[in-house]
């Protein structure tokens, strides 16, 4: 009597283990498939970004020879959370992708700097998760357009009120910490450019 009970318990436990094992394997396979799709999409996105960089550097390229075109035209430097794409051509330009901590989230910024004139030519927020309507306004044109052709030889200053010192832009009211985060990120990236291009 006792033996059969034990046997029954053993059988039930075996069934449970097999069931969980099979389920876990199926789920893992599904997730591996999902991850491979995601990695493919990431690689695609990276390539599109690199094409954008070549376009801003005005380097001609073709779809087939893209990798060699890119490597001939661009020199990549990495520094912690920032990647610099220096142009090897005549125009002394550098494209920068930098990540930094905002108030809630990681902010990714793309910018193109003219090293000769020390001016920002292009500035885009690639992604962020800041408060919509407050810090989230860093992606709006009125904020980003302030940086274009700005004299940044002394870095960027995001201020409440402008005082005619070069390099100043208006902060977003109600989003002081996000504004400061953007300022810190940009200045770090620009410091990097200054030290690397010498």
């Amino acid at each position, binding site marked *: 009597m006792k033996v059969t009970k034990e046997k029954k318990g053993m059988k039930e436990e075996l069934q449970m283990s097999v069931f*969980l094992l099979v389920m876990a394997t199926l789920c893992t396979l599904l*997730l591996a498939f*999902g991850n491979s799709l995601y990695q493919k999409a990431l690689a695609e996105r990276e390539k599109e970004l690199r094409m954008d960089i070549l376009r801003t550097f005005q380097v001609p390229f073709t779809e087939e020879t893209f990798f060699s075109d890119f490597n001939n035209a661009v020199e990549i430097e990495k520094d912690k959370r920032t990647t610099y794409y220096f142009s090897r051509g005549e125009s002394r330009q550098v494209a920068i992708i930098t990540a930094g901590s905002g108030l809630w989230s990681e902010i990714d910024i793309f910018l193109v700097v003219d090293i000769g004139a020390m001016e920002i030519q292009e500035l885009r927020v690639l992604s962020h998760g800041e408060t919509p309507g407050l810090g989230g306004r860093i992606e709006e044109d009125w904020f980003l357009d302030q940086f274009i052709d700005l004299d940044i030889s002394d870095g960027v200053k995001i201020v409440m009120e402008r005082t005619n010192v070069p390099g100043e832009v208006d902060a977003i009211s109600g989003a002081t910490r996000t504004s400061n985060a953007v300022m810190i990120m940009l200045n770090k990236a620009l410091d990097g450019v200054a030290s690397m291009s010498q």
Partner: protein
Amino acid sequence: MGKIAKSRGVSYFIESLWYNNATFSMVLGICSALAITTNLLNALVMGISVTVVLIISSTVISLLRSIIPERVRIITFMLLISTFVIMVDFILKIYLPPVSKALGPYVGLIITNCILMGRAEAFAIKQPPYYSIMDSLGSGIGYTLSIMVLAAVRELLGAGSLFGVQVLGESWAGWGLLMIPSGAFFVLGFYIMLANMIQKRFINRNVD
């Protein structure tokens, strides 16, 4: 309303959509409802994600209900739900990267959304797939509509826009309070009060 003959599936649907509305009646899934309702687009995407995961997981659990060993059913729910949630997360990351970033960790946290475990344990494990699908469709749409009405108020008054389109004019000064999670508590409390009043006053319901 009660007199009209309804099929069982439809009545399960209405039951979960309105009488047992996850957010306003049962106050489940509040964490995400407070966090992501700052604008309508995020709320819509979140609602659809939850609905999709809910329907898939309920269907699978309902189909497997006879072979899921009772003692490990909760682990099985977790395993299935988390797999489907991560798949939805991948899909959002691939096709809607900005929205995915704005939702942040809350897509992953659908796993711990009480609505999913609740419907799995209370309904799907006992009922055939058709009823489970109707039930989860009701719960999912109920959740989506609830967070949409929350988001509508918050986005309209907080930013003056709906779905990112400015409707209250450029001069509208946003109510910053509504944009932070504590503002969501006020709106949610107001809606729960409203839902209770409607249910008490206008619907004489025969409790079975």
